């Protein structure tokens, strides 16, 4: 970066360089634009190879000519400083822009221009683009799985209640602030469980019981992810502390636990949770499939969370422990008030990483017969009336997952900023 090979034309030549360069640069754009959007090749008179390379050559020359030091034009200086520092960067910039321009028309036409959304059967999809009709017709299934249509309001109501309760923190007064952690860590999950148990599962107060096998779609993704995130975090924290404990029993139990769960693939864990686990339980003891799956994923991810948190614990200087001890704090006070707040702050990116992986691992619960969104897609794509729309389905699922994960990652950035106390 330190050496930008600027051209240094004198004042008189400045506009010659600027306009020639600018013209060539824009010409290269025009060529690619016409070519990709309107299939017009304005350089067809040239030999094929030259015609193909024409925009790149022209564009590079153009960028070379406008690489003028202290031109006095703010935007031009910015351009030169950031993307037009030398010929190599100029070519890279042009290539990226050209590739985007070239691929835009196809993408646009598949997603929007040639896509179909009207109608309510496969026959409506005649265009060459995506068949969003398929998503539209199956939307309810993708949201709620096999949950009976007439009861779907129960899922909606519970999610609205839970989302509303999640925002309590924003409206609580100063006086209640100190109870918020307690609320979110202990009370809220309990409320969530009660709401889901009585409202979505039903079986009480005149609500019909709906077995967990019928739950599915995005709502199931949320339920599984939510409980797994909530459970795996405290378990992981305890394991991380346990692994650093001076008591050998606790230490080796933690090490063994972590190494066991990290060593097995999630899919086998899930399979065992549904097939083998019931065999070890007493005959009359019944644990729902969904509960077993949530426990299995929580324990599995807890091992990862534990190692991430351990990294944070080890990054803290020993002086922090010394200082806390010298003030007379015992093990728990030291960890709760001094060590963990700092260690957790350090590992927010790592925890976010693990949590994103967890959310994206939830489709694996299909091995025990629970169909969240990807599971529902797989079911829908084998429906004889709707064969051949796997692509639309997966794109839809990808978009949904991306939105969930992007929101989580944004939130983790905010947390990082919020707890950044060093200068």
């Amino acid at each position, binding site marked *: 970066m330190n050496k930008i090979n600027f051209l240094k034309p004198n004042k008189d030549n400045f506009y010659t360089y600027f306009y020639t360069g600018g013209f060539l640069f824009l010409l290269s754009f025009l060529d690619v634009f016409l070519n990709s959007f309107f299939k017009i090749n304005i350089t067809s008179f040239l030999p094929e190879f030259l015609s193909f390379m024409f925009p790149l050559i022209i564009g590079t020359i153009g960028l070379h000519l406008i690489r003028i030091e202290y031109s006095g034009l703010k935007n031009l200086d910015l351009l030169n400083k950031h993307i037009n520092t030398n010929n190599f960067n100029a070519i890279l910039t042009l290539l990226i822009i050209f590739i985007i321009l070239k691929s835009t028309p196809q993408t646009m036409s598949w997603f929007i221009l040639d896509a179909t959304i009207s109608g309510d059967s496969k026959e409506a999809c005649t265009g060459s683009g995506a068949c969003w009709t398929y998503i539209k017709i199956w939307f309810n299934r993708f949201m709620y799985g096999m949950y009976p249509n007439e009861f779907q309001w129960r899922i909606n109501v519970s999610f609205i209640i839970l989302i509303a309760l999640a925002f309590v923190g924003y409206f609580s007064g100063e006086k209640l602030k100190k109870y918020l952690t307690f609320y979110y860590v202990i009370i809220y999950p309990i409320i969530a469980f009660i709401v889901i148990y009585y409202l979505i599962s039903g079986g009480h107060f005149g609500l019909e019981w709906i077995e967990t096998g019928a739950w599915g779609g995005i709502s199931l993704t949320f339920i599984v992810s939510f409980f797994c995130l909530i459970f795996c975090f405290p378990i992981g924290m305890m394991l991380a502390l346990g692994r650093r404990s001076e008591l050998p029993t606790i230490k080796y139990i933690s090490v063994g636990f972590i190494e066991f769960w990290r060593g097995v693939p999630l899919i086998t864990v899930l399979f065992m949770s549904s097939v083998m686990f019931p065999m070890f339980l007493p005959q009359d003891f019944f644990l729902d499939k969904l509960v077993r799956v949530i426990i299995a994923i929580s324990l599995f991810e807890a091992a990862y969370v534990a190692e991430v948190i351990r990294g944070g614990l080890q990054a803290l*200087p020993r*002086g*922090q422990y*010394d*200082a*806390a*001890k*010298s*003030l*007379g*704090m*015992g093990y728990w*006070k030291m960890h709760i*008030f*001094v060590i963990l*707040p*700092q260690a957790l*702050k350090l590992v927010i990116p790592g925890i976010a990483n693990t949590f994103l992986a967890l959310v994206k691992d939830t489709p694996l619960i299909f091995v025990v017969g629970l169909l969240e969104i990807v599971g529902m897609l797989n079911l829908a794509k084998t429906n004889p009336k709707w064969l051949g729309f796997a692509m639309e389905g997966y794109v839809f699922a990808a978009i949904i997952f991306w939105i969930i994960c992007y929101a989580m990652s944004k939130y983790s950035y905010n947390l990082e900023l919020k*707890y950044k*106390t*060093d*200068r």
Partner: protein
Amino acid sequence: MSNSIIQIKDVNKWFGDFQVLKDINLEVEKNKKIVVCGPSGSGKSTLIRCINRLEEHQKGQIIVDGTELSEDTKNIEQVRAEVGMVFQQFNLFPHLSILDNCTLAPIWVKKLPKIQAEELAMKQLEKVQIADQAKKFPGQLSGGQQQRCAIARALCMEPKIMLFDEPTSALDPEMIKEVLDAMVNLAKAGMTMIVVTHEMGFAKEVADEVIFMDEGMIVEKAETKEFFANPKNDRTKLFLSQIL
């Protein structure tokens, strides 16, 4: 029994095979100020870290204010609450404001109500002259200010004894004085202090006794005037000639 607040009897300590403390015997009377000096690696930091059991001694006895340091965690926490310590690297808690640094232990260890703890903290911060920084975080303060805050934090536990482990060694020269001034004021107020330091000016001004340690042993122990005017041991003489 004498009125010694700290009694150290035949204390030995090893790091692996390396013996850091050899047969240390020391009695510190109430309200006395002791300065410990010596070359680096002589075990002086380890000695004072043993007094609040940040390090464990393997042989001998350490009795602090009538409580013997042993495996018993309850005893240790009780002793630590009575013994304040200031470190070379300040070791403030970077995630808490200056005020919270000072009130954390009084609230959770001594169970003081929050308002009372804050009053106490402001009083101590006033004494070391950084009350106006109370709302800031440690990262926003200069080294000298941080160290003074660390002193205030230790004082908030209202300890009977204060230990200083090279409190000025990590500071820029122009900040040393402000920290030493705070320590001198504390000494004049009658605190029992054990200070590991290379600041001989400070030793001359406030110390009742100076101890010179080398290779894990107490080589020389004398009244301050006597120590500087008339050192007896050759190693002490050599050390003083290098440092003064």
